[in-house]
């Protein structure tokens, strides 16, 4: 008995990776550059803290590494894919009514090396 391979193109895989990146932000209400300071980098636990804080704000929040990969700041999976190790420079942007507060608090969290 033999089976022909189905030969289904894996188009979904690519579709999803591109959709998770937010290509452009029209206007930036607030933004700030920060350096990742903690020893582990933006790994699971720090990323969790970051996302939990970000979610307390109504503003849309993005995080950008090397000025290219802007990802949703409220998505832990997207943050993790940034692969932000110690010393990585990140730009945190927020757009919305509480943008200023959001950028300020999130930057502080990163720069203070989370709770380590």
């Amino acid at each position: 008995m033999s089976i022909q391979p189905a030969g289904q193109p894996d188009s979904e895989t690519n579709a999803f990776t591109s959709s998770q990146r937010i290509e452009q932000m029209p206007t930036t209400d607030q933004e700030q550059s920060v350096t990742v300071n903690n020893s582990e980098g933006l790994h699971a636990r720090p990323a969790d803290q970051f996302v939990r804080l970000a979610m307390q704000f109504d503003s849309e929040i993005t995080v950008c590494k090397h000025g290219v990969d802007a990802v949703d700041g409220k998505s832990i999976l997207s943050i993790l894919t940034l692969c932000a190790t110690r010393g990585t420079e990140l730009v945190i942007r927020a757009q919305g009514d509480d943008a200023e507060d959001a950028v300020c608090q999130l930057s502080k969290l990163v720069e203070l090396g989370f709770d380590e």
Partner: protein
Amino acid sequence: MQILEGIAVSPGVAIGEVVVIDNEGFRIPARFVTQDAVAGEILRLDQAIASVSVEIAKNRDKISDRLGEHYGAIFAAHLQMLQDPTLHSAVEAMIREKNHSAEYAVSKTLRGYAKVFQDLDDQYLSERAHDIFDLEKSLLGKLLRRRRESLNNLSTPLIVLAHNLTPSETAKLDPRFVLGFATEIGGPGSHTAIVAKGLEIPAVVGMGQFLTDISGGDVVIVDGDHGQVILNPDEPTLARYRTEVEHHRSQAAEWSVLRDLPAMTTDGTEIQLGANIEFPHEVATCLERGADLIGLYRTEFLYLGTDDEPTEEDHYVAYTHVIKTMNPRPVVIRTLDLGADKMGQLPLHEEESNPFLGVRSIRLSLRNLDLFRIQLRAALRASALGKVRIMFPMITTLDELRQAKMLLIDTMEDLNEDQIEFDENVEVGMMVEVPAAVMMLDKLLREVDFISIGTNDLIQYCLAVDRSNSALANLYRASDPAVLRLIQTTLNLANAAKVPVNLCGDMSTTPRYIPLLLGLGLRSMSLPPSAIPEIKQVCRSFNIKQCGEIAKRAMLLDSAREVDTFLTQEIRQVMPDLAP
């Protein structure tokens, strides 16, 4: 279109959409759902996420209490991943825009993330891929469990494709909704095959690996006559098979005319045709198909599909129904014929490396006398209601037969003491299915009222072939000259001793073997009720002299292949319309 070959175990043709059950018995999710089902899929997704979230939160709290916040935070991160809005919208988009099932969308999306992590140039992060797989497993577990439950109450007719179906799973299939099935493993003599035949569901087993490329909802044809499964058939093939389904239907109508005619050869020799059944409800079909008796009432299903030992009353109720419905026609009750490995009720003493050569059947009964006594008592009580015969399976030695009969006499005495009615003259017989029993048959025949040749096991034990091993299906053949010699010896000895001899087993369902068996002196067969009309037609088409000549020539041949070729030629000459 793809045509896959397997082993035909239950005749008929089925055309329909498929459901797939994988290794663990889970249903492999359909890749696509209908537009109407999209909202439901998203609801299922949300429910699954919610219920996995609760579990993770519980773990987080437990670990935090035991090991501290720092460890609990690992689960907090998992929870965060599970509730990730980007993830959710990606999965939802796949369901909404591409009509994917929730399972498929979850799996595809999470695996996409896992791949991204694995490719990251960071040891720690690439290991996060395991977390993702973990989440996938939990979510699929939830999603599939709901599906799996729904498999037991199907509401539209479908074809079931599975790695394996256990006999009890097969038994639970509802013939109204299961049009046919095909499995990756299994052989022609497996219990699953027997059950499929009993339920009259077209089935093909021993396909080898074929499930990976099939999605739920694909259209397939299960051809139980030729042992083929056709995936995504093209229009001409579909049309051809639809004609065949029609043909089966009209043939069934034709055969119903045969019901009231005797299974008599053209020279006037009467052949007794009994029915094999597993479930009491099959008796109705037996009468419909014109069975002269229940030649084999398998009682295993009282023990399968339940964790509790069946009570005397369970046995009695089942037997009563069969006996009363068949009365005055006889019912042959065969005592438990199972391996301990198939029963939930008995503790396994040790792992058996060769269950077919292990503690099974009469050996099991004689080692669990309490269990055995319950069955014998119920069978004896039922004998007061009609014509009951009791048959012991897998007798290998005279001692086994004597022990079993002794216990039966003990049980009779108990019933007498309790003043419970039973038939004092109940006939007692044995299966001849171990070559040793054939060798000792002259002695065994003196101690029984009847015998029944069980070809399924006789072939297996004669040829040393595990009947459920699909790799050896080619060796497992009723037409092997060695098997035929055992049958010939048995018939000669039994006929000379004037002990009634019956043959049950799949051999008697194959038309080409019928003239041979009649020629060897067989006058009584027991078969699945569905096969009775066709076999009756065969009996009515030959005369005994002709059969004798066919048998004489067949017994001179060297191999199963030669025998099969010869017998096929012979039957085609007489019955050219018969399916091969």
